[in-house]
């Protein structure tokens, strides 16, 4: 095919993205670097001296790391279990895992409000069982955020890992066993190393997703803010465009650093060299 047709086909989409995504992003980043016409990192220096912002950033990172680790720890065994299933059963179980993924995040976070609230399911059960007398305050804490985010992103890591685990030839495990490895050793030395690239891809999705999530922290986090809700507050409630732009820039930079580092790690730990 001739090159000019090629560019003609790509041009409309590229133009659209350039005008409405790339240019606004560049302008946003650029606007944070100039004050009264001169170049400055001042706003970032201010941010990183501000203990309120550092607290928010800390909470966000803590919640994201906890969510990612929990998703991996919970997701890996289940994904392994799923990958061993006969196709029909696996299909149904996968469908059940994908269903929440395609359901609105508002709906899913809302469900945890019903469960974790003062008069929610968890407190009711615990009080009925006599374990506690006064309801626990779980809702509107970082813990609630983590629970909500794990619920949000677990399906993502499940389907990523099932895909990777399915692609591992079962004969490899049998071969390891025939060479004298126990089932556990075969799992540890064959299955885990071969699934590391998938684990890293899944971790990127979960970590970046948690880092930038708005709905779940907004509904389950109460007064505890994360970077995304802080950005919204600055832009809409406080109308502080420069601060909001700086937060947006910080979010993008962290996202790209995380993706970059994880991809590096993926390349380094790639068992196939």
């Amino acid at each position, binding site marked *: 095919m001739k090159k000019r047709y090629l560019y003609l086909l790509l041009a409309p989409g590229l133009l659209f993205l350039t005008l409405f995504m790339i240019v606004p992003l560049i302008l946003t980043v650029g606007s944070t670097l100039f004050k009264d016409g001169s170049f400055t990192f001042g706003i970032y220096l201010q941010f990183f001296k501000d203990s309120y912002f550092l607290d928010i950033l800390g909470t966000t990172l803590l919640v994201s790391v906890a969510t990612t680790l929990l998703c991996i720890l919970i997701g890996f065994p289940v994904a392994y279990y799923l990958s061993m299933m006969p196709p029909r059963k696996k299909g149904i179980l996968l469908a059940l895992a994908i269903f929440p993924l395609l359901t609105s995040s508002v*709906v899913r976070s809302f469900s945890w409000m019903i469960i974790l609230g003062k008069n929610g399911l968890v407190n009711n059960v615990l009080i009925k069982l006599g374990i506690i007398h006064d309801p626990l305050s779980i809702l509107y804490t970082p813990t609630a955020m983590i629970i909500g985010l794990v619920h949000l992103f677990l399906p993502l890591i499940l389907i990523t890992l099932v895909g990777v685990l399915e692609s591992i030839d079962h004969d490899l495990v049998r071969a390891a066993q025939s060479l004298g490895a126990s089932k556990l050793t075969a799992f540890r030395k064959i299955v885990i190393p071969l699934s590391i690239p998938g684990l890293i891809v899944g971790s990127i999705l979960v970590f970046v997703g948690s880092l930038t999530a708005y709905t779940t922290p907004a509904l389950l986090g109460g007064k505890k803010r994360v970077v995304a809700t802080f950005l*919204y507050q600055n832009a809409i409630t406080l109308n502080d465009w420069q601060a909001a732009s700086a937060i947006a820039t910080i979010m993008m930079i962290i996202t790209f650093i995380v993706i970059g580092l994880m991809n590096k790690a993926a390349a380094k730990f790639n068992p196939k060299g």
Partner: protein
Amino acid sequence: MKTKNPGLALFSFIVYLFLLGPLLIIAVTSFEPGTVLKFPPTGFSLKWYQNIFDVEMFMSTFKTSIIVSLLGNVIAILLGVPAAYALNRVTFRGKDTLNAVFLSPLLIPGIVLGFTLLKYVVITFHFPIYTSLLIGHTIIMLPFIIRVIGSSLANFDFAVEEAALSLGSSRLATFFKVVLPNIKSGIIASVLLAFLESFNNVDISLFMTGPGVSTLPIQMLTYVENYFDPTIAAISVLLMLITAVFMFVIERLLGLTYFTKQ
């Protein structure tokens, strides 16, 4: 290989309970007759379903959501299908970069996209909010179109296209007569996935609200912050039904393995 590991089976069962239990609880509480959400519900009533249709804001934002998702989808298809075709049909220098650009809305935080759209497209360049909402949704739908149709095209034997050309068909006619019919299921699936992504979107719509303009998820979010009655639960059930129908269609078209092969 089969593992008979009861511990693993039990663990998986608990995880599934964790994933699906909350959705089930919402469904059950939507039938609560009282004004406060309770689990278990104190009775059975459909009055909160009735309430959805009585609250004007739900109906109008639902309409906006549908229009924006559908129209955005059409634009995303018009922009995305030619691009996906070009990206899969030939190899050329810079192809990987362009591919990354088209998929980048997946990586850039939605909240950042929403904010920059508000700041520059709406405020600086004076685009109407409704138009900007549509633009934002088109941006986030594009990667789905590119990716799903791209994988359909990657499985398409382009020799078939060459065969049509050698038999005298023009390039454009070949695309509609030969290529399109064979990636039909990919297109439908990508449309459905993109629709769900757009319809459920919060991050962008959050910034694109104005007089008479808001989407259903944003309306739900506002409602939840102020009321705790079962209306939201009832809406949730309806949305889950839509999701279930969409999933069924996607499964028929691509098979569920599509989801694990990204």
